């Protein structure tokens, strides 16, 4: 039935033979909630949405799609910020939402086995009864799924000390596009063969559909304390970040917000942030009681020496939570003060922070668009939020141009176009800035090793060489971009 692709009704009725009818959605209205992820400027209805609830169903769906050449896009909670879960008009959207069970918490081996649709925070909540938790904590953790976290290699405010998703998982069960079930990694610390676990992590749903995840659990630290420091100059805050690390201290979290972000967050959740500061740093220290006391003292001294105008330690756990609430709700807070905002995600070597922040400020003036900076300062992962109004003629276009300039700057100073949000559809052209043709070809070859048919999330994350040639040519013409074939940095 190779022409099934043209014949949607036949595919849909074949799906109804595999799943209960309420698990196959084909009406536009039913499919509307799946038309975009967190990057809502891109929208597309799929041909059909399937909501399986067993691994066998996932296998059958993928076999069916494989046999008929229908592309498949996996989806967790749809909080992704790069359009990774954006549906394809002629494709099937595979929602893992019904895989929402925690299968096992193994305290003795400090691990938990969960289904991919389990929310990130739900793992820590379930482990709390044993004094344990799952470390990576993206700001979206009440909503995003662990499957999506693995697919994006998500980080969080605690990843400076505790690592990213890739450092905190042990084993995956994955279904290939052909419908084959693979076990990748192991319940042991190392596993035989190539490190496919690393390859799967951050692969944006292009290599396989993740149907089970075994994560590591950590003992909850005895104490966590946060220090808030205010600065009258963003550069000083940036330099303070380097000084803390240089002193041999690895904070559990080290976050920075600038004035616009501080005010938006303060107005939204009343976190007690100083509204008149140009920048604040939130520095969390965790460990044993005595250890935390020792580090708090050291960090306070460094911050003061770096020119902080105010250094405040949370008075109690409630205030600590409040300080973090302000940070974790910074994106929605900015959403309240601007009709739209665009979140960037470049990472740079930490020492470039002052330079890059200054350049972003200058570009903000050039493009006539305000920027709120809220980011993971400790690991140099920037999240400039560009404020714009999509209803104003040309503003989205200008915003995207501005965003591209920021990413090019990140690559120029030795960084990367994406620290944790993924490439998706959004940054696919910037991949041509960061990688040479031979490197992109190697990525395509890796993809083909898992998915020879190329039907899993096609067109995302890795651009075709042709696309780069067109993109590169266009920009070279305007004299803005070095030719992608030339030496980078």
């Amino acid at each position, binding site marked *: 039935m190779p022409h099934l692709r043209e014949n949607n009704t036949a595919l849909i009725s074949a799906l109804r033979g595999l799943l209960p009818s309420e698990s196959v959605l084909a009406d536009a209205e039913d499919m509307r909630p799946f038309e975009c992820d967190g990057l809502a400027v891109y929208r597309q209805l799929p041909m059909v949405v399937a909501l399986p609830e067993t691994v066998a169903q996932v296998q059958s769906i993928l076999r069916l799609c494989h046999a008929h050449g229908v592309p498949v896009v996996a989806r967790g909670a749809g909080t992704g910020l790069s359009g990774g879960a954006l549906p394809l008009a002629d494709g099937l959207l595979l929602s893992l939402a019904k895989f929402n069970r925690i299968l096992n918490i193994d305290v003795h081996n400090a691990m938990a086995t969960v289904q991919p649709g389990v929310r990130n925070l739900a793992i820590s909540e379930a482990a709390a009864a044993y004094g344990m938790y799952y470390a990576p904590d993206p700001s979206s953790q009440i909503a995003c799924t662990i499957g999506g976290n693995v697919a994006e290699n998500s980080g969080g405010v605690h990843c400076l000390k505790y690592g990213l998703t890739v450092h905190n998982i042990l084993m995956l069960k994955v279904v290939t596009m052909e419908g084959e079930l693979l076990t990748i990694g192991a319940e042991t610390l190392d596993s*035989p*063969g190539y490190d496919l676990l*690393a390859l799967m992590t951050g692969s944006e749903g292009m290599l396989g559909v993740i149907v089970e995840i075994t994560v590591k659990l950590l003992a909850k630290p005895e104490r966590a304390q946060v220090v808030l420091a205010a600065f009258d100059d963003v550069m000083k805050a940036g330099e303070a970040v380097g000084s803390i690390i240089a002193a041999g201290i690895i904070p559990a979290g080290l976050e920075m917000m600038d004035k616009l972000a501080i005010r938006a967050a303060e107005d939204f959740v009343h976190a007690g942030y100083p509204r008149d500061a140009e920048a604040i740093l939130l520095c969390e220290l965790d460990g044993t009681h005595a250890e935390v006391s020792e580090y708090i003292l050291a960090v306070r001294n460094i911050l003061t020496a770096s020119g902080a105008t105010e250094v405040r330690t949370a008075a109690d756990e409630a205030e600590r939570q409040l300080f973090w609430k302000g940070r974790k709700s910074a994106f929605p807070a900015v959403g309240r003060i601007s009709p739209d905002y665009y979140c960037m995600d470049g990472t740079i*070597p930490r020492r470039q922070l002052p330079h890059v922040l200054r350049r972003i400020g200058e570009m903000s003036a050039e493009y006539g668009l305000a920027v709120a900076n809220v980011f993971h300062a400790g690991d140099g992962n920037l999240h400039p939020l560009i404020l714009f109004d999509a209803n104003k003629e040309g503003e989205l276009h200008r915003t995207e141009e501005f965003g591209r300039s920021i990413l090019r700057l990140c690559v120029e100073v030795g960084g990367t176009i994406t620290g944790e949000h993924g490439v998706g559809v959004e940054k696919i052209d910037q991949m041509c800035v960061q990688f040479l043709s031979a490197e992109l070809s190697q990525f395509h070859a890796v993809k083909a090793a898992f998915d020879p048919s190329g039907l899993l999330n096609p067109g995302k994350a890795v651009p075709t060489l042709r696309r780069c040639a067109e993109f590169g040519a266009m920009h070279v013409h305007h004299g803005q971009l070095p030719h992608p074939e030339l030496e980078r940095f």
Partner: protein
Amino acid sequence: MGGMDISTALQQQVLDAFHNGTPLNICGSGSKAFLGNASRGQAIDVTGHRGIVEYDPSELVLTVRSGTTLHEIEAALAEAGQMLAFEPPHFGEAATLGGTIACGLSGPRRPYCGSARDSVLGCKLINGRGEILRFGGQVMKNVAGYDVSRLMVGAHGTLGVMLELSLKVLPRPAASITVTRVCSAAGAVSSMSALLGKPLPVDGACFHGEQLYIRLSGSAQAVREARSKIAGGVLPDADNFWHALREHQLPFFKRNGALYRVMVKPATPPLNIEGTWLLDWGGAQRWLYSTEDPASLRHRIASVGGHVTAFRGGKQADEIFHPLPAPLLAIHQRIKASFDPKNIFNRGRLYAGL
């Protein structure tokens, strides 16, 4: 920062091998030559490609050429009060970083502070077509493209010649102490497992010769506080003990016969398999000298969810690494072909046919 860049010569050698289909045997110092299946092919010597390319302690990132010795790297880090978090075994004076990363071996700190692979941030390599490629980078977080750098770790040089590696490094702990007490193997396993659920600064746990050893590292305060919560006496000269464990210089490792590296879930009770055991990594990595038939050994250990490497002293003809299920092996072969289409690098070093 000194050293020597011979990447052009190495690239030329790979290009020639690609055109002529000559198998290559990638050579570091040869300290781990015993490890893996017998190597064939023309030697391609990376030890001349050496030197620290970039190291800024406040970035916690180090970039070095792959032929640089661990010795030189660790000396540079120590000067800045930092270290490689994965505490790599050297197994020889001249061990190179490239060989260490290719073997993917980590020391006693691994369960608590991460593995060799966890430290890798970026890699520059020559693939089997003679192309020089760069993946990852010098920053802590980077999700642009597939994680090819970490794929190189433990690939035993079968996917490419690593030229340069960027690693995340960590400050050395200000203080460290080792607490030891006599106990049974079963008691050690349950004590080490219980520690995983406690917020203590443990960075080493080993059971050897009826003794349990727990290493605590961190700020002086933290170590003092934690020590009072763990029963046992303080081990004098603890650094020597952990060094000897890491380098396989304890008397335990001086035996003749086949040494197996057994990976299991840490809380797995002592296995009833004939032989002499040493438990490292809090019980997650177990060393075993045994005369049991390797196939039945693998079978027994696989039945508790573990796997085995024939680390040293076994029969050369036996499979060294734990066999892969057929669908996974097929993906391995396709990945190998995608990097090294003419199969020139370290043929058969990891698995026959890879």
